[in-house]
């Protein structure tokens, strides 16, 4: 019978329309603008309309989500910022589009390099968000961010001022990874202390 397929097709759309309202009623007012509702709408059980009303609503990002990296500093009790980066250059070397460049610090007296970056740049327009810099950083000093709203009218070359974020921010966006890293750091420090002790004894 001609026309049957078209009626069927219209039926699909109608069903979707009705499903949306049925789901609305089942979730009575909690389907929109609240995290549970958003999670429901992006789960396998979602019926009807799927869309998220960006920017009023935002999809939560998983912990592993990666966007343009930032540099981590530790807040010391005396309020001093201790930058974790030692300007070893691994991130700059592993970066596939080569969008990281680092100016090293030299000791003014001896002229030798000091493990701290003088300047640190990331060209966020070139960055391809691959996450290699964070993955291979031996000091957990560079971490992929979750903040994806960086559109602007000019070229986004991020300097240290823009890149530095506290370790507490890192903890807030990646709690599991942060805990793992802290554990590894503590283990390393303990091992170093044990070694020093052993060296002192002998």
């Amino acid at each position, binding site marked *: 019978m*001609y*026309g*049957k*397929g*078209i009626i*069927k*097709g219209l039926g*699909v*759309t109608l069903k*979707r329309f009705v499903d949306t309202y049925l789901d609305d009623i089942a979730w009575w007012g909690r389907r929109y603008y609240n995290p549970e509702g958003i999670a429901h709408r*992006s*789960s*396998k059980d979602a019926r009807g309309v*799927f869309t998220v009303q960006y920017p009023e609503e935002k999809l939560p*990002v*998983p*912990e*592993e*989500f*990666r966007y343009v990296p930032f540099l981590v500093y530790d807040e010391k009790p005396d309020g001093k910022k201790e930058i974790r980066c030692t300007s070893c*250059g*691994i991130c*700059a*070397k*592993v*970066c*596939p589009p*080569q969008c*990281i*460049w*680092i*100016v*090293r610090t030299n000791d003014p007296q001896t002229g030798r390099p000091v493990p701290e970056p003088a*300047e640190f*740049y990331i*060209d966020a327009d070139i960055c*391809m*968000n*691959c*996450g*290699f810099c964070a*993955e*291979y950083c031996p000091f957990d000093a560079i971490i*992929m961010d979750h903040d994806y709203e960086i559109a602007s009218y000019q*070229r986004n*070359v991020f300097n240290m001022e823009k890149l530095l974020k506290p370790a507490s921010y890192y903890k807030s966006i990646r709690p*599991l990874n942060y805990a793992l890293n802290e554990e590894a750091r503590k283990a390393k420090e303990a091992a170093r202390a044990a070694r020093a002790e052993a060296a002192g004894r002998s």
Partner: protein
Amino acid sequence: MATLVSEMVDLASRFPGVVSADTRPGYSGWMVNKDNLVEVATALRDEFGFELLSNVCGVDYFPDKMEVVYEAYRTTGGPGLRFKVQVARLDPMEVPSVTPVWPGAEFQEREIWDLYGIRFTNHPDLRRILMWEGFAGHPLRKDWHEPFYEEDNKPLDSRWPRGKYASAEEKNIYKDNLQFPQNFDPQEVRIDGEAPLYDTLQKYTTIDAGIKTDRVIVNMGPQHPSTHGVFRAAVVLDGETIVSLKPVMGYLHRNHEKIGERNTFLQNMPYTDRLDYFNSMSNNWGYSLAVEKLMNIKVPERAEYLRVIMAELSRIQNHLILIGMLLNDLGAFFTPALYAFEERELILDIFEAASGARMMCNYHRFGGVSRDLPAGVLEKIKGLVDERLPRKADEFDRFLSENEVLLARLKGVKVIDADDAVRYSITGPVLRASGVPYDVRRAQPYGIYDRFDFDVALRHNGDLYDNYLIRLDEIRQSIRIVQQAVKQIPEGPINSQKPAYQVRVPAGEAYGRIEAPKGELGFYVVSTGKPNPWRYHVRAPSFVNITALEKMCVGTKIADFVAILGVIDIVLGELDR
């Protein structure tokens, strides 16, 4: 068994003095004397049964030799046969074309001419293909340097330790990425780049009962919604019937392979994501397979399972989008496409949770994968493949497969038959829809595909309708594979290697190939033992499958061209590279 049969292929004794084994350390295959290439190729196809020429690529062994590498396979499965032709690196370089034996080599040989400057004698239409007519030089040659060239290899000294960098627009007074040949005079530029293209089209005039009729040339694209990107086809029409057609591509060309040769081995991984950007998970796999062959390393069990799960999920979403977009091409404006996007959304959520990105996953590492699945994701995958996706596949089937508009547009419109599909090196669903049960996952299993119970989807008519149905079949088979994989996946390490930002790859060559959703995706990698690959070639299924586009379209209506292009399933990131 298959290995034994292949070892019996002894070309050196079949062609004494013409063929010799490639004895360079790390290399394999046969060296063929240039002048006897067509003779050897014919014998390979007719006597030894290597009907499917999968990959043709050039290698520049600067400064003395150029090489053309061929990979041929049997459609009954088993390992392939690699043979090579070497020429002295002196212009003009000439190699006989193998298009009389395997017409599927046409575009790949054009690509080699374009990027290496090796001329193929007896080639039907040797023009540039990715670069434009009038481009100066052949960019994949080792002595060709791009604008703002800094160094042969990354990492670049300017970033570290020098820490000085200026962006391209600061360096060029025209604020543009331009490079002119020496003695370039804009006054003398004559724009005739299109003339060679139009010359190849069959233009003709008929005089019928005193009425003179000219044929019309229509340019479909580059800005045309049905071409799924910036792709163009110059078409000669007789009424609505296609008389002659030439695809034009390269609008998205970025010389991916040159970038790949500048990169270190690891740095190439995220670049492969950008080839077929719907299926970064399978692209990663093809590349890591090639490099793992070179490094001779094993992948732990859990990582193998993760790779299978991700690759099959990516196949499911690719085919869903194909069906949705095919309906879009047929005129059902975006409603079915967006229904297909819903399922894709759920799959991309899984990719995002596992790898950190929805599309540019960058998930594989040499020897495993980058991250394990976070808590709860495996349950999500189970929920999808056990409940939602089978239901949705049935729903698509129920609503679409019997739809009279779909039937009227798709049924009986021939795409390609089995013989031609093999001759034209077509792989993937289009080949299987024409009746050739050739699937790399079965023909030469990689990873752990030999453990799973699944059928190679097969249809026999080779028309558009079969090409549509085979996508549904493949979705169902992929669901089956993921169902088995999530049941069997063991605990354990996800990478056999220590994380290292610089990997050591022994010298040699390797060809890794996988069954990507669009066809056979191959990576030909040559290492010289340095941190960067000497040669990095992508055998892109979109690019090779499009070789037969003219063959498929001639004789059909212009409206069918849109549907045919839709089922070939091209993606421009991979086609243009």
